[in-house]
């Protein structure tokens, strides 16, 4: 258990931050396109 506490996966956090930013930008673009195309009811 000690072994795991000593190891700080900072690089993993860095990669995931980049991933999350990409996710928000791409998903957000698709979502905004949806809003721009308007209602259906």
């Amino acid at each position, binding site marked *: *258990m000690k*072994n*795991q506490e000593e*190891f700080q*996966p*900072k*690089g*993993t956090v*860095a*990669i*995931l931050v980049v*991933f999350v930013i*990409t*996710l928000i930008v*791409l*998903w957000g673009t*698709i*979502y905004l*396109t*949806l809003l721009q*195309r308007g209602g*259906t009811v």
Partner: protein
Amino acid sequence: MTAQTYSLSPKEKSFVSWHLLVAMVALALGTLFGPLQAFQHAGLNLYPFLQPLIKSYYQGLTLHAVLNALVWTTFFITGFLTFNVIYGLKRPLRYPTLNQVGFCLMIIGLVMAAIPILLNKASVLYTFYPPMKAHWAYYVGLTLVVVGSWVEGYGFYFTYAAWRKENPGERTPFIAFASVLTMVLWQIATLGVAVEMLTMLIPWSLGLIETVDPQLARTYFWFTGHPLVYFWLLPAYISWYAMLPKQVGGKMFSYSLARLAFWLFLLLSVPLGFHHQYVDPGVPPGWKFVHAVLTFSVFFPSLLTAFTVSASLEYGARKNGGTGLFRWVLALPWRDPSVAAQLLAGLLFFFGGIGGLANAAYNVNLELHNTTFVPGHFHLTVATGVTLSFMGVSYWLVPYLTGKKLWKPDLARWQAWLWFIGMIIFSNAMHVLGILGAPRRTALGDAPYVPAEWNSRLLQVGIGGGILFIGAILYFAVMIGTAFSKVKVEKEVEVPVAEALQPVSQTPAWLDRWAPWVYAALALIVIAYGPQLYEQIRNISLTSPGFRVW
């Protein structure tokens, strides 16, 4: 170091090899049609040259989809899981004959389904939505493939039970645990399509009943259709969690969370099929929204996987001298084709996840349903995250099984990179076209409504498809070269199974107990599907006769 001296017997090795052989032959045939579709989109239609062997784009598309998405995956997976169960439990199959019977059923089913497809009597794609009606042998054949895989699964259960008896109180070794779980998930998931086949499609195609209910058939189909992708994905996750870390010199970062992720997949994979039916007329929006929330929640174990796997790899990279926030990635053994293939597969799988989260987002599906965004998405997931990983696995597994050295590892590495690059070009274009409104499953080269602004993207689809095809050829060259090579491995290939960073004995006992998780999964299915299934079956309208429209 624990000594890993256990080895499969020659018979067991050959049994697993047969699975992989059928899988690869299917992939070779199925992949042949990929570039034909991509080129057709780009304005180069090669289908006329295949007359009279292959009658149409859609027959080619059916072959591509069935052979790659159903046959390649199912055969590779049952083979790989068989290997994992035996090697993980370090004991032979309890009833090898049972597994052999299962495999034979799969082969019989495959042949039965292949004949009508090749004769253009089943050009209904791999979703076979009624009331399009294929030859009965197509439905019976596919059903037999599934039943055969069930029988192989029963073989796993008996083997696992025997191991349990021999090793009371011990934690199940991860690769065996995860493999048995994948099979349990598959057996629950395929109930939907089994009911569809047995109560509708098979009697209908045999002429025993005249009409079917296409809406109810869709509900049955997608009960199976989504967890199907987890059946494809989990074996790749087994490799990413438990094998890849060893290959890069690391350890499993969290043995417990790896197990938790698998349990969550078992719990959440099935009760969310309505997210494939968001724009169906016959399902109420309330239930669609419930399934949307459940779909988002099954994204969670994948986010967990992203962290755990990445940290396991980082641990290995840092031990190899990797430094920096991002630079450690370069310290991974990229020269090993098995590692390169799986790292690139994982990288593109991130983007597959993003597209999946868009498809799954309830009304966002109005923008994307049945557009090229969807095949763009699943070529990142099943055709890369899964398929490229399986290719990576085969770069060590085939030498292990055959005792032959991997033929031309350089070509294998090129294969991984070409697949990666080709897929980026292909799938990016498919996603963009989808948002612009391009329909999927359509011979776009013949479509009169294609606006000029799509043309550059359609060309990219063709270019990407071409590069992928070269990648595929390299894969088969390496596999054939290895099989026929005369160069034996010096000593048996070491099976990469990573140790855990924490002692395995510290895994909580509730992460190794089946009953609560399986019951909870079944309960969640009853809650999420029960009311709608009851409603749709009670109001069944058997009003659709069959059509042959190709």
